[in-house]
């Protein structure tokens, strides 16, 4: 018996090593009419996220991405009510049994619209707010705020009003205010959807830094397939409340037709790979520009076989 117990241990250990575990999650918002049938937004979602992993969640509009993000720090169902089934474990805590305030110190959530999260007079006050409410020692607080400002590149703008910033700067402020709480897991719900190209690239470079320097576990819902390809260890494709595809970017983005059916775009170079594979029976699986260029340029040295 003892021996069997030991044999089961590795499986159990692996389960502990997943910092986020979502298991058969079903969720429906409460309806206005008590007799109305339950309208499930999530219909049995299961996945694990390892510590330090970068997971992107893709899915068409209205498919449950935001609901899933909110379920990761307990806002769903603690603030939203409704019907929930299945489990969400973050950093070992069951989101049904621990209050959002406790979960929020482990899971930071960044929303699509930065303005929903900003309300202080200055950028610095905004970032300090969460720490003040924890009753942190001022010296330590100043240090943390300074660090968070530096990570998002907003040190020079610390005295500005968050409402007089560009979209990208607002979102960076929102991210810094979450980072200051030093969560182990960062969840971003379409953080660039409302931003112009300049704002998008500002936010993506912050995300790039977080990935590279902080080794944080990051879960990001996004549409921007070319950026997703650059950042993600793994992509989860949500459709009609269920996980339809998951895998490394190269695996998911090679399913060009399937993704199109779902209503999602893959990186353009992945479409190129798909098209060339059909024509020439090659097995390209590009997800990034550089990789596509290297492979395609290889067979055609500069100045040879080309037009004058």
């Amino acid at each position, binding site marked *: 018996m003892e021996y069997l117990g030991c044999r089961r241990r590795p499986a159990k250990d692996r389960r502990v090593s997943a910092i986020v575990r979502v298991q058969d999650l079903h969720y429906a918002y409460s309806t206005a009419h008590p007799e109305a049938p339950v309208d499930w937004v999530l219909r049995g979602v299961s996945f694990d996220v390892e510590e330090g992993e970068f997971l992107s969640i893709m899915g068409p509009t*209205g498919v449950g991405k935001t609901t899933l993000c909110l379920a990761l720090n307990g806002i769903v169902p603690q603030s939203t009510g409704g019907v929930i089934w299945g489990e969400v474990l973050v950093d070992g805590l069951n989101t049904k049994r621990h209050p959002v305030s406790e979960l929020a110190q482990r899971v930071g959530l960044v929303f699509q619209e930065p303005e929903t999260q900003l309300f202080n007079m200055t950028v610095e006050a905004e970032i300090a707010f969460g720490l003040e409410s924890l009753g942190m020692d001022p010296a330590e607080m100043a240090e943390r705020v300074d660090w968070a400002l530096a990570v998002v590149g907003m040190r020079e703008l610390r005295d500005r009003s968050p409402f007089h910033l560009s979209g990208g700067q607002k979102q960076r402020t929102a991210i810094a205010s979450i980072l200051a709480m030093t969560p182990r897991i960062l969840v971003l719900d379409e953080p660039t959807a409302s931003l*112009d190209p300049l704002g998008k690239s500002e936010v993506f470079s912050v995300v790039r830094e977080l990935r590279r320097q902080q080794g944080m576990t990051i879960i990001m819902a996004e549409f921007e397939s070319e950026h997703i390809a650059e950042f993600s260890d793994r992509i989860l494709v949500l459709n009609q409340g269920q996980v339809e595809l998951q895998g490394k970017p190269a695996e998911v983005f090679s399913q060009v037709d399937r993704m199109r059916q779902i209503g999602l775009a893959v990186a*353009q*170079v992945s479409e190129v790979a798909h*098209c060339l594979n059909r*024509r020439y029976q090659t097995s390209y699986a590009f997800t990034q520009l550089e990789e596509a260029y290297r492979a395609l340029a290889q067979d055609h040295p500069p*100045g040879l076989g080309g037009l004058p």
Partner: protein
Amino acid sequence: MRGLQTKDLWFAYHNGDAALRGVSISIQPGEFVAVIGQNGSGKTTLVKHFNGLLRPSSGQVLLDGEDTGDKSVGTLARSVGYVFQNPDHQIFSPSTREEIAFGPTNLRLSAEEIEHNTLDALRCFDLVPYADRQPALLGYGLRRKVSIAAVYAMHTPYLVLDEPTTGLDRKSTTELMQLLSRLNQQGRTIILITHDMRVVTEYVPRCIVVREGQVLVHDDTSSVFGQYDLLKTTSLEIPQVCELARRMVVHGMRDGVLTVPEFCDAYSQLKNLA
């Protein structure tokens, strides 16, 4: 002379900063053109002059050869339909059907025409199931569609849309762009502000590039995206496949590739040559 012209158009907002600095362009009837440029470059300010929402500080706007200066927004609305960037700035009716019928009713079309245009718009935008729902309570993608359908129903020869694909997923974006292409083929002039360069290269044949209140270039999309250095100065996002094709030119690929199918054809040419 038909079409939309601006002649040395200048415009300053109340704070005195010139948002447009001498814009002279000529949009031909039947043109399908994207207005592109960074935030704050003057794109929206420019197109708001086309239906009189803004009036020039100096210079002229001509619609089908006539100065718009002495025409009311109401009069101009018969020719130029305008879809706002934020659908919620437009939507107010208790039902989608009434929202869409509002424009044709205001144009004093006959009851029959109003009925016909409304139904046509509901069908065209797949909004029939939502005809009796309250549009303000629909999801964002649907509210977007309602706001466009309501302007479409006025059957104006000119259609101006300010960032209509923002917040839409790929499927809705593709549907909308295919619909706009169809309307254009039926002869409508379509002027579209967008940040989505993939939309521009795949669907829109002409471009106006705006920077700091001036029009840098107004030309075919393939020619505009060929001017790499110019695009870099406007910090527009160049689609991945255009960037790949540009780098492949030294390896013998032809110039002016805009889309994935074009790239694959150009690559095949290259392979055949080798």
